[in-house]
């Protein structure tokens, strides 16, 4: 059984992201990038399933410019067998990404599409769901446990009320949550092996996907600074302060 795993190159989670002075976005030049942490969890899960003999092939896929090759090399070092690089230098919105992934999934005939539940750059949390909708296949999002068996997947999901277990028919989309696993550290010899694994480069046109722009970003701004707190001396004072602000 084959799995397709999407991996996105994002600004590293340790970087203090800064908004561009003209409000057109955030500064991405000259800052460290790495694989979206949720996608690392997706990669790790796929590799574990392969180690257990539940998957036979793992194909990593990314959309982005030349630098995304690094992200694919990490995925290959993680344990992907080969990779697909959808080359695109400009911004890509979730729907376009989902169309491209759906097309690739079909073309590859993969049974599982693994993705992080969201990417830490835009936090959109849409792509996985859209892939499922476009292909009209099952989806199990926010996974904290995944079992593959025959033509089915049993997935435990993190929901507001606790945990929910779903059984879904394959092919299916599974998006991964933080507690699913702890991704391994790359092994140095695997970094060298990854160099020899194949990366296929394609374009949106090759996949028959038109790059749409359903959303327009009107402005990006930093969150408002937290204003200074005040100290109250008594509970009464607290209550009246809350009342005067109309909070109780």
């Amino acid at each position, binding site marked *: 059984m084959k799995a397709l795993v999407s991996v996105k190159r994002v600004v590293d989670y340790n970087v203090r992201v800064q908004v561009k002075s003209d409000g057109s976005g955030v500064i991405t030049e000259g800052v460290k990038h790495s694989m979206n942490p949720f996608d690392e969890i997706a990669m790790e899960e796929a590799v574990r399933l392969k180690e257990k003999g539940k998957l036979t092939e793992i194909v990593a896929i990314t959309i982005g410019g030349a630098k995304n*090759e690094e992200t694919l090399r990490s995925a290959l070092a993680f344990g992907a067998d080969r990779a697909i690089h959808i080359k695109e230098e400009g911004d890509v919105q979730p729907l376009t990404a989902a169309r491209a992934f759906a097309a690739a999934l079909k073309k590859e005939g993969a049974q599982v599409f693994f993705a992080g539940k969201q990417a830490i750059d835009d936090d959109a949390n849409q792509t996985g769901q859209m892939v499922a909708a476009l292909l009209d296949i099952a989806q199990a999002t926010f996974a904290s446990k995944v079992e593959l068996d025959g033509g089915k997947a049993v997935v435990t999901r993190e929901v507001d009320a606790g945990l929910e277990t779903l059984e879904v028919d394959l092919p299916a989309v599974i998006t991964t949550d933080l507690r699913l696993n702890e991704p391994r550290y790359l092994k*140095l010899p695997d*970094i060298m092996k990854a160099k020899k694994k194949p990366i296929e480069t394609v374009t949106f046109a090759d996949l028959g996907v038109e790059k749409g722009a359903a959303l327009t970003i009107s402005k990006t701004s930093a969150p408002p600074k937290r204003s200074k707190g005040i100290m109250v001396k008594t509970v009464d004072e607290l209550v009246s302060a809350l009342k005067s602000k109309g909070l109780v």
Partner: protein
Amino acid sequence: MSLILSRRDLDFLLYQWLDVEALTRFPRYAEHSRDTFDAVLDTSEKIATERFAPHNKLNDQHEPHFDGERVTMHDQVKPALDAYCDAGLMAAAQDAEFGGMQLPTVVEKASFAYFLGANVGTSAYPFLTIGNANTLLKHGTPAQIDAFVRPQFAGRYFGTMCLSEPQAGSSLSDIVTRAEYEGDSALGPQYRLTGNKMWISGGEHELSENIVHLVLAKVPDDNGRLIPGVKGISLFIVPKYLVNADGTRGERNDVVLAGLNHKMGYRGTTNCLLNFGEGTRHRPGGKAGAIGYRVGELHRGLACMFHMMNEARIGVGLGATMLGYTGYLHALDYARTRKQGRVISGSGKEASAPQQPIIEHADVRRMLLAQKAYVEGALALNLYCSQLVDVQHNSDDAAERERMTLLLEILTPIAKSWPSQWCLEANSLAIQVHGGYGYTRDYNVEQFYRDNRLNPIHEGTHGVQGLDLLGRKVVMQDGAALKALGAVVARSVARAAAVPTLADYAKTLGESMQNLAVVTQRLWAAGDIHKTLANSSVYLEAFGHTVLAWIWLEQALAAQRLPADDFTAGKLQACRYFFEWELPKVGPQLDLLAAMDTTALDMRDAWF
């Protein structure tokens, strides 16, 4: 922002200054490219940050404990080292055959810098293991390599270096550990060792399956006497557990821990007094005496051990650098958040205005700038030396290899001692920036200082490095090493002379090198070795500062070629600091040396 090491700086040094990608011209590194180097650095940063840094303070607060039987230590140490070994970092620079990825030394050291900065105590175990295995790889027999090197690179065994004895530290010629020949074995000529080794880092622990001690000892002559001097020293492998022919763990060897030393810093590393050949608890083969296998020729042990010592000296310099570096980043972070006082503006101080971050005070920026100049300069020097090792091992041009060897000979004492002195000073300044808080154990900087205080002591004290530089290195092969360094510096000076903003510094550095050469000649013309060497540690410091001025000029040359931004401006300012504030310290030192001052030499014991 990482508080261990600035990746921007590391990238600058590796790719924009040293151009380490060019090393891929050598067949050994041909399969590499920047992305494999980056992947190693990413992994190292991650493991260091997530597994090493979190227990750095705990390691210090709960130092290893010996109950007379077993050594116990903080329970996060082993998982951290397991993660390190599992990632294949122990073998990073080795052939694929040993599980390695043939990483260039310079990138390996850059990767290791993260661990040293995150937790120097825990990092000492791989530090010693890699040095031990490299020495055996060079001087051991194939059987010794199979039995002791492979398991070390695989992270199953850890290694030590056992040179010092209670009565013989700086003066290794006075060691008295005896090795009596017993017969030949598959693992080489077999001996029984008796004696005590003092200060042995990593000498006992249960972090690995076995411990491979590399031990210096003397083989008695036919009359049972030990040959005086270093000529009588041989090198032995003494494993904690003997190794069976099939590689499994055998009998316990007669090496026992007599006690742990309670140190000022580096507390995470066990530091041991080891007894060899006690004959009470363990009697391998039914006899007293620790079984050891000789490495290399009889009486040639110190020469073999120098392989490990030279590597360790640059490594100690890198450790000192990284303690200074992480201290600097902590101080910088603190200075940007701690608010205290107001900066005087046009009409004086505005008492009602909010307090400002202390980085707004010029004196605080001075302390930060000094730290930046020390730690970034030291890191640059250590990486430069590591790259020399790569070229030395790989160049097919014999003259180039010889040049690299000479440069390493002369720069090793500097790469060891300069960071040990000035990055310790950086740690002192990091405490100063923190004010009273820096003096408490609630913050990290006091530990960095205590940890770093070791570095001018071990691997050849500061004094010993001074003697090595002035007494040996600058005069070796008729001054060939000094000339080789002079030629490299002269090239930088010529390049900088063509850059208007750097031309003055180029001139100053050129003069400084010239003065150093003159003083060296004068010292050696004294005709009295006592006078020549009396002030060698001052010579070491003057030499070190001159070398670092060159390293800063080199960094400035690389920085001014890049598009101007805050980072490059910072590099250029640190270069300016070094030339305006630090290099001038060298003048009075050279004057004192040139005058053949004998104040210290003439002082008498009785006058104190």
